[in-house]
Structure formats: C-alpha cells, structure tokens
C-alpha cells in the first residue's frame, strides 16, 4: 500500500496504540469498573431471566400453568416414596413431615438448578458470548435469578401444602424474605463459580448431577438430621446441619411450619446463613471476574 510518509512511521504497534490512546480490545476491566458495568446491565439481566423462564413452557398446551404444576407433581412423587413407602418421617407427625419434605425439596431444588444452569451458563451460550459485549457475569446471575422466579411459583404450591397441614400464616412467615435473599446470594455465587469451571471443562455438566444428588441426601431434605444421627457424635450432625443447603432449608421450615420450632435449628444459624451467602457470593464473583477476558475462547 502506498501510504504517504507519516510521523508514525517506524513506531511499533504498542507505541502507536499508546500514542493515540487505543486500548487492548477485550481486556478485563478492574473489579470496581466491572461491578459498574454489571449494574448498567441490570435490565438485560432481568429481561434475560424472564425470557428464559417464559420460553420454557411456551410450546406446551397448558403453558405457564406448568410453572406451578411441575413443583406440585414433584412434591407428590417425593411424598409417595419417602412419606408413604419408606416412612422417612421418623420423629415427626404427618402434619410436620409433609410440609417439612416439600419445603426441603423446593429449597434444595433452587440451589441445585442454579448450579446446573450455572455450569452451562457460559459453555451453553457461546454464541451469545461471541456475538455481543456485556459483562459475562450477567449470564450466571441471570440464570440464578431465573431459578429464583421459578422458586417463587413453587412457593405458591408450598403455601397451599403448608396451610393444608395446619400451619397458618403468621409473623414468622416474614422470615421468608431474608432467607430467600441470603440463599439467592449464595446460589448466584455458586453459579458464578461453576460457570467459570464449566466454561473450561464442559464435562462438569455430566458430573454435577451426581455431586448434587449426594449433597441432597446428605443435607436432610427428606429426613431430620438430628433425629437420624442421634447415636452418632454431635459434631457429625453439626457439620451436616451447618452446610449451606441444610441451613437454608431449616430456616425456611422454621419460618413456615408452626410446629417446627427453634430447637430443630443448629446454633448460630443466622450468622452461618449470612456467612455462607457473603463468602460464596463475593468469592464466586471475584473468581469469575478473574477469567473474564478468557470466556468465549474456542
């Protein structure tokens, strides 16, 4: 090319870029700037999660009714197997056990599906990542938000079940809000962590269902940890009860079920719930941000 001689002749690419104030394309912004960008995209995050939720059942004849019907059927299956066949509700009356079980299933499903959608948040949306600019953390957070909205539909079913078994709305029901807020923070953090891991190793999507199922059985979704581990040392039960999934389930049960009193909760329950939420949310966010410029590499 016959370019006219210019004062820029002989400069290296980096010097030329510096001279005209060009920045490296696709470089990772500083953490504070990243948070600001993410906040700027909050409407996209909301719209994306709602759109995903709405498109889920859009081909079904019953349409959005499935949002409520799916958790209802889930609860029925668990009740048949664990309530009627296995009689896992040792140490609890039917009035407590059924709401106990259904609450556990729904609350755990929230965490479980946040992790599962988180694993595929980047690796399953490479088209989007390679076509448009936005802070990549939008995707896992958006998926966690979608699961939260899904849980809110499930809560309608849950309220019916709980009321049907004799626990009526009272002041303790207001605790639902902080419990959900803390669990959402925790789940978003997990989704961020697994989004980064899943972007590097897509095989996690195959592995995670087994990990999540193990976690579910260890967290006392369908049985009471203190009752089942009564003959084991206290610290075993403590560790199981302090795991985040068990904590959020227990707090939700405490909020909803009249006869599920504070004696079922481990010590320092709110501090542990808050600690997990902050630790995982902040840690997950920083961990995800550190690989920001690498998402989308083939």
């Amino acid at each position: 090319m016959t370019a006219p001689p210019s004062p820029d002749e002989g400069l290296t690419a980096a010097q030329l870029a510096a001279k005209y104030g060009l920045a490296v394309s696709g470089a990772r912004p500083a953490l504070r700037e990243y948070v600001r960008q993410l906040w700027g995209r909050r409407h996209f995050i909301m719209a994306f999660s709602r759109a995903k939720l709405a498109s889920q059942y859009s081909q079904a004849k019953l349409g959005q009714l499935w949002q409520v019907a799916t958790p209802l059927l889930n609860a029925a299956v668990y009740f048949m197997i664990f309530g009627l066949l296995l009689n896992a509700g040792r140490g609890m009356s039917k009035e407590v056990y059924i709401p106990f079980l259904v609450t556990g299933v729904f609350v755990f499903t929230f965490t479980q599906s946040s992790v599962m959608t988180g694993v595929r948040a980047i690796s399953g949306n490479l088209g989007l990542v390679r076509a448009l600019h936005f802070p990549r953390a939008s995707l896992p957070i958006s998926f966690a938000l979608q699961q939260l909205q899904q849980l809110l539909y499930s809560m309608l079913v849950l309220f019916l079940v709980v009321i049907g078994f004799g626990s009526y709305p009272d002041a303790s029901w207001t605790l639902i809000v902080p419990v959900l807020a803390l669990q959402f923070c925790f789940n978003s953090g997990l989704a961020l962590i697994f989004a980064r891991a899943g972007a590097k190793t897509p095989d996690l999507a195959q592995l995670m269902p087994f990990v999540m199922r193990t976690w579910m059985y260890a967290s006392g979704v369908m049985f009471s940890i203190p009752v089942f581990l009564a003959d084991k040392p206290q610290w075993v039960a403590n560790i199981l009860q302090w795991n985040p999934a068990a904590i959020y389930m227990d707090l939700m049960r405490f909020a909803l079920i009249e006869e599920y009193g504070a004696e079922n909760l481990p010590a320092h329950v709110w501090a542990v719930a808050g600690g997990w939420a902050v630790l995982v949310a902040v840690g997950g966010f920083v961990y995800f941000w550190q690989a920001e410029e690498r998402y989308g590499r083939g």
Partner: protein
Amino acid sequence: MVEPLAGQRIPTVIADEVHIVYRVNGAKSGKGSATAALSRIVKRGRREGEERGVRKVHAVRGVSFVAHRGEAVGLIGSNGSGKSTLLRAIAGLLPPESGKVYTDGQPSLLGVNAALMNDLTGERNVTLGGLAMGMSREQIKERYQEIVDFSGINEKGDFITLPMRTYSSGMQARLRFSIAAAKDHDVLMIDEALATGDAKFRGRSEERIRELREHAGTVFLVSHSNKSIRDTCDRVLWLERGELRLDGPTEEVMREYEKFSGK
C-alpha cells in the same frame, strides 16, 4: 475514496501479529466411540504439550494491520479463511492466542441473533435484543416503533405479537437486522448482513448501512459479494488460510482476488 481529515490519519484499530486458535473437544480421531475417547486419554500421557482429546484449529495466523478513522475496510477470502474469526477478535469477543488488538472505543459486531429467543414474541425480542446490545429501556421505547416499521413485520397484519418461531425465515432475518441496526456504533463490523430479505427490504437495509457508516468511525465488512465490497469499501484485506495475503486499495486487491478465484 474517503480522504482522511486534515491530512492526519488517526488509527482506530491496530492488529499486531494476531493468532487465533480454536480448540475442539473430542475430534482428535475420526471415531467418536467411548473406547476411542479412552484410548486418546491413555495415549496422551506420552505426548508432550498437547491437551487430551483436543484438536487445535489455527484459524488466524499472524495478521497485522492498522485501520484509520473514516476508512471502510472490506474482508475477503474463500470460505473458512478466517474472516469472521478475525472480526470477532477485533471486537474483543474472541481472545487471541497470541498478539494483540488495540481499538479506539468498543467495536461492535452487527448482529443480535444469539440473544433472541424463538419462543418469544417479536415484541419481547425487540426489547431483549436491544438490552443485549447495551441500549437502555428508554432508548428502546423511543426506537421501538422505528424498529418494527423498518422490519416491515406488521405490514401483513399484527405479527409482532406472535412468537418468532412462527415467522418465515425471511421475516426472522428482517427483524434481526432491524434490531441490530437500531444502534449507532464507533467501530462497526458487518458480517454479510446485507443480503437478507426481499428486494424491497434489501434496498432499505443497504440505505441503513450507509447511514450507520456515516456515523461510525471505521467500518469492517465481511462479504462474498464483490459488488457490495466495491460499493462500500475503500480498502480491502484479503485473507487466505488465516494469513493476510494482500492489503491495499479496493480495486488493486479485488483484481488480484478475482484472478485468484478465477472469475
């Protein structure tokens, strides 16, 4: 040809020895069976430097160029020569394996296909696509009617409130283009977006691309249509097998390219 302002050429995009490598999982040997995958993992232990079961595709090999403000740069080359990949790298969407891309502001790719969802109504897709491109809710509200009118979706009835999967492929393409073209960009990249829809819509979209060009500092256009390259660009980069084969004024490069491709 566009003359640079005041004789001074201001660089807006600098590519410095850019290499891009795709990694494809599970494509090492032709066989996709479980035993083949296992033997890949076992064998791999002995070979140094190669990741297990991963095949590398070197899509762009050491491309360097400087683009200036006011330039419209065309990218040509046969299928699979790395044109679209290079565009993504300039936009910062595909991190280079080595080398660097420097840009002035945020280059954007013209396209929102990936953000749209076929199960949602056209209406919601306009909002979703706009938000995905970084427009604010107010901007979208302001431009909504313009986008719908431009796409011509509602010319034959109230189709914008139907799910996108019910549209014909031509209508889908029109809506996608209309959403993507609703935003102004500093450095604009167009990947063969020109040839969509019927003749009437094509005329409209070419008009819109000209408008976008006037607002944008620098334009990159990937196209297989020699005519649209000649109409739009004043400089052409010719890529072949990931390497920059020729870089120069449109006519010069196009003559060589046509000789090469035997037209």
